[in-house]
């Protein structure tokens, strides 16, 4: 406790003057606060509003760790991408790998060695040249330094060694043939060895917040307010050319409502993760352009399919009926994806059938109409009847032991759409006679329950990387009942195909294998695939004309697996940066605000408060106390 107080004081000393001044000032200025602060301060802050060249992004996820060896959250990796360039990067058009720090790469004959040729004349933001040694340093840290493994250990899992044979050449040797290497290097930001060399020992606790941070991406870090905001400045030395935005800020908002309000008010320039209702309103607000981007994300319901763990043991308490593929099929038939997409996603999603979303058309398979499972409660019921699940008294569906079937359905309480979907699913399954017990819980709890197998159904969702290897690898037998993995399903044939595609250097042949694997998952109903959700974003179109989306046609601005969105941001009156791909035509039109204006809001609320206040006062009338000895 003693220490807490001491560090508290330290904290005050080190932090910017804000709180310290505030504490003192609050005491002094409190009385005049309501009177003075309102009229006087507002114009001051207004004057501080950035003029044109600042892009303020409202983020609702946590800003946690800016050390690229450790940051794993969406915002952390996003900032990492902006600060540090990669060897290769998924392109804006269709996310296929494109040269970045590496100009070219070639596999060896045996497929186990990859040679990367470095781009010449590329510099760190401090003017030092970027060489193959930096690449070697970065990769070796991840492979050998325990403190540097958190973020990208998986990406280098198959690597045997990384060597800079000369300043312009890097050689990566893998333990086995792995075509996904190119995808992996597209995830690892390269850090400058000359800066990080002496940080190696304490890399675990290095926060990488002392500005200016030497980087190589389109922006360099220039300021951090822990947990609250990150400020980046345009990197003059960026090899594709300086971005047109001078300053990029990521500001933390606690919810999308606050973020949308900030956008409407002009406190923020770019907002994402909007709800359909917010999107529709922002769409109609003047000065704001809304964009529904095709995302690399899918939503599904995973099931406890009863698969055994790698060591042959059973796990958890899943309802055994889910081990029956016919039962799973019936459930799949009972989900009306159209309704979900229309009602929950406001139409901003596509029906899902497979793991790899359509933004990666190379890897998706074509589902034949006869195999497709459509919404059909009648059919679902007849499948169940045929499979021997009778209906008991009151229409409850009975399992093979004659007990009514109840399935537990878990959803994350920080994802509103899951709770909403759950209500529909509950009613649809109810029409099969299956009772659904829905619980909305914290994501960590959900993870715990799904890992230990104490669930029947659970919402899940993934953002899929450009290379299918990663996503497909989540469905392997060895991952059943572990903290890893997606569907907890086991099919030895699938595992065999997985190894096969990993070693397949021929892209077409690999495609075929990948598609077959996905067909297998679909036929086996490994999960109830629900939707590919669009990312709903909006920005101040009166301050920015274009952003580069990924994929370039109707894709997303934020959450990209690249830096295109922020790099290609073009303030009004500017031309896009030279190195940015062309932004596609935006389809959304910019129209005047209809809806209830904020003035109307204010009037309604004030009116209501007055009415209620009046009621309260009426109620609060107290009888006069007569024995009053006052004069």
């Amino acid at each position, binding site marked *: 406790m003693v220490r807490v107080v001491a560090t508290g004081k330290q904290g005050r000393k080190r932090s910017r003057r804000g709180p310290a001044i505030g504490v003192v000032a609050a005491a002094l200025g409190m009385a005049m606060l309501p009177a003075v602060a309102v009229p006087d301060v507002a114009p001051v802050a207004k004057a501080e509003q950035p003029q044109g060249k600042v892009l303020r992004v409202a983020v609702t996820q946590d800003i946690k760790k800016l050390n690229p060896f450790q940051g794993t959250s969406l915002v952390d990796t996003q900032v990492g991408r902006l600060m540090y360039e990669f060897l290769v990067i998924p392109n804006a058009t269709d996310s296929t790998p494109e040269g970045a720090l590496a100009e070219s790469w070639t596999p060896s004959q045996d497929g186990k060695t990859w040679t990367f040729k470095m781009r010449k004349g590329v510099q760190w933001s401090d003017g030092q040249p970027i060489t193959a040694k930096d690449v070697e340093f970065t990769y070796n840290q991840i492979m050998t330094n325990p403190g540097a493994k958190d973020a990208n250990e998986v990406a280098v899992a198959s690597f045997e060694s990384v060597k800079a044979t000369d300043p312009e050449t890097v050689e990566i040797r893998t333990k086995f043939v792995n075509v996904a290497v190119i995808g992996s290097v597209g995830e690892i930001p390269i850090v400058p060895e000359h800066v990080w060399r002496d940080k190696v020992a304490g890399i675990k606790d290095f926060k990488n917040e002392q500005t200016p941070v030497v980087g190589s991406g389109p922006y360099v870090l220039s300021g951090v307010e822990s947990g609250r905001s990150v400020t980046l400045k345009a990197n003059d030395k960026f090899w594709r050319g300086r971005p047109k935005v001078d300053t990029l800020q990521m500001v933390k908002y606690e919810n999308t409502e606050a973020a949308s309000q900030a956008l409407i008010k002009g406190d923020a320039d770019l907002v994402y993760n909007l709800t359909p209702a917010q999107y529709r309103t922002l769409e109609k607000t003047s000065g704001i352009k809304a964009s529904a981007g095709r995302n690399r994300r899918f939503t599904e319901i995973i099931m406890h399919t009863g698969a055994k763990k790698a060591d042959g043991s059973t796990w958890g308490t899943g309802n055994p009926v889910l081990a029956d593929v016919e039962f799973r099929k019936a459930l799949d038939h009972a989900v009306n994806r159209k309704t979900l997409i229309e009602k929950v996603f406001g139409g901003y999603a596509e029906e899902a059938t497979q793991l790899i979303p359509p933004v990666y058309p190379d890897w998706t398979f074509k589902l034949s109409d006869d195999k497709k499972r459509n919404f059909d409660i009648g059919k679902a019921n007849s499948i169940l009847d045929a499979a021997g699940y009778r209906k008991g008294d009151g229409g409850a569906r009975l399992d093979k032991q004659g007990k009514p079937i109840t399935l537990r359905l878990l959803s994350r309480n920080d994802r509103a759409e899951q709770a909403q979907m759950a209500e529909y699913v509950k009613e649809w399954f109810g029409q099969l006679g299956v009772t659904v017990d829905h619980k909305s819980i914290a994501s960590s709890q959900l993870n715990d329950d799904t890992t230990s197998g104490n669930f029947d159904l659970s919402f899940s969702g993934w953002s899929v990387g450009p290379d299918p290897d990663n996503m497909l690898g989540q469905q392997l037998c060895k991952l059943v009942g572990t903290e890893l993995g997606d569907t907890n399903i086991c099919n030895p044939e699938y595992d065999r195909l997985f190894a096969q595609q990993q070693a397949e250097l021929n892209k077409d042949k690999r495609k075929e294998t990948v598609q077959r694997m996905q067909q297998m998952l679909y036929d086996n109903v490994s999960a109830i695939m629900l939707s590919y959700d669009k990312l709903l974003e909006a920005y101040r179109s009166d301050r920015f004309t274009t952003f580069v989306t990924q994929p370039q046609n109707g894709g997303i601005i934020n959450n990209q697996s690249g830096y295109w969105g922020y790099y290609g941001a073009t303030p009004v009156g500017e031309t896009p940066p030279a190195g940015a791909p062309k932004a596609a035509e935006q389809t959304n039109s910019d129209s005047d605000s209809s809806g209830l204006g904020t003035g109307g809001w204010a009037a309604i609320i004030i009116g209501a408060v007055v009415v209620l206040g009046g009621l309260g006062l009426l109620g609060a009338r107290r009888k006069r106390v*007569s*024995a*009053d*000895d*006052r*004069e």
Partner: protein
Amino acid sequence: MSQPLLEFRDVSVHYRARAADTTAEEIHAVRGVSLSLAAGEKLGLAGESGCGKSTLAMSVLRLLPKSARLEGEILLDGEDISTMSWGRLRAVRWAAGSVVFQGAMNALNPVHRIGDQIAEPIRLHGSLGSSPSTSAVDRRVAELLEQVELPVERARAYPHELSGGQKQRVMIAMALACEPKLIIADEPTTALDVVVQAQVLDLMTRLVEERGIGLVMISHDLAVLASTCERLAVMYQGELVEQGESAAVIARPEHAHTKALAAAFPTVGDPVYRYAPATSSPLGLPEAPSTSDDEPAEPLLRTEDLRVTFGGTHAVAGVDLSVAPGEIVALVGQSGSGKTTLARAVLGLQRPTSGSVYFEGERVPRSASGLKAYRRQVQLVLQDPTSALNPRHSVYEAVAEGLRIHKVPGDEREHVAAALEAAELRPADRYMSVLPHELSGGQRQRVVIAGALALEPRLLVADEPVASLDASVRGEILALLLRLRARLGLAALVITHDLGLAWNIADRVAVMFRGELVEVGAVDSVLRSPSHSYTQSLLDALPSASVLGR
């Protein structure tokens, strides 16, 4: 005759009482009182609680609650108080007439130093000029404190740091601060011990006389008033029933109520009052027992070197006391002398530090279960019957409580009826369903006694059994104790600060001082010829009118 200092002309005060069910009704607290006081005169206003004497006194400075309505005229120095403007009234308050309030403990503001509180009216009324210097005020405060015989340094004290007597002195100093012509003293000594009471009365009378200040003193104790005031006025149910020279009123009371008041305070040493508390009960009084100074052979209750220590304070410091069967022993002493602690230790409510209690020759156990049996034999009667009865329990429940605890066999109702009869609440049926607040003080005390009698005990320990009762009731309860002793052979240990009570009913008296018994013996010998100086000082402190034959 010159103009009187204070004159009440047909004064009435009504309270607009608002009962729970919101029906407003008027209470006539004072009805048509006419009374006057000459400058420098001392007038005693006597009466029982609720007779309107305090209301009358407070009306002088119009300190009545808002709900009160004042009729008639109150002339203070010729000026009618009832029609004064607020501003004029504020100016008159304290400057023309000041008040010594009842219970100085509450009348002083606990968070201000007493010096400041004394100085407040001085500054306010400009008795030292319109804006007196701090040092001038301080000097005046010091002077006042000296006059009331308090050390000057005490000006910096807070009220709670003072004893009751000291606080009352502060009140007197405060009352004198603006040199008023009139002081109203409302029960100024009620909460104080006999000895302190005498000192404070002496002081006040002396200061008032020296300065020629008129004094209206209010008290329920006729003896106190008679010993200080030249004239007495007696109020009863809002009306003035008698007034006249003090000696005359005391010696030849005319109104029945005055007689009752006068009789309630026995004259210690006068054989007329021996075993004869004032009672109008048709049951009369039992014969006086034959008494002897000899210790009985087999005492009912005996304590042996009983000690109770509270963190270094010896509340009871080695007491040997005995009570014989059928004997009434009075335990006399000032507050703080340890007599209540002794009583509690006897009852096993307070675990003694050392020593022991013997009942019928057997040592009283200390365990809860052992005590339970003992407690059937020894019962407690508390000082304030109002708080000794659970306001939510009917008389029946209160009396039956002990029966239920001890699971006394037999018909509960009959036991209760018998106990109520024994306590002379007749007919018992009428009282059973009644709640305590519907009873008078004396009846409540009878209920408490009935609750004790229900268990058919051998000994009653009565802690100030009549101290909170009105004077006219006091005698009845004491007579009841005497009759119970005569009828049931009930022994009693009566704890009191009142020597008159001991004289009224006790066989023997034990005088307690600082935790020790300084004198024990037959009432007649101890109170007539005390051997210890402390007993003597207690006797000296009695108001002069009530001490005879020494």
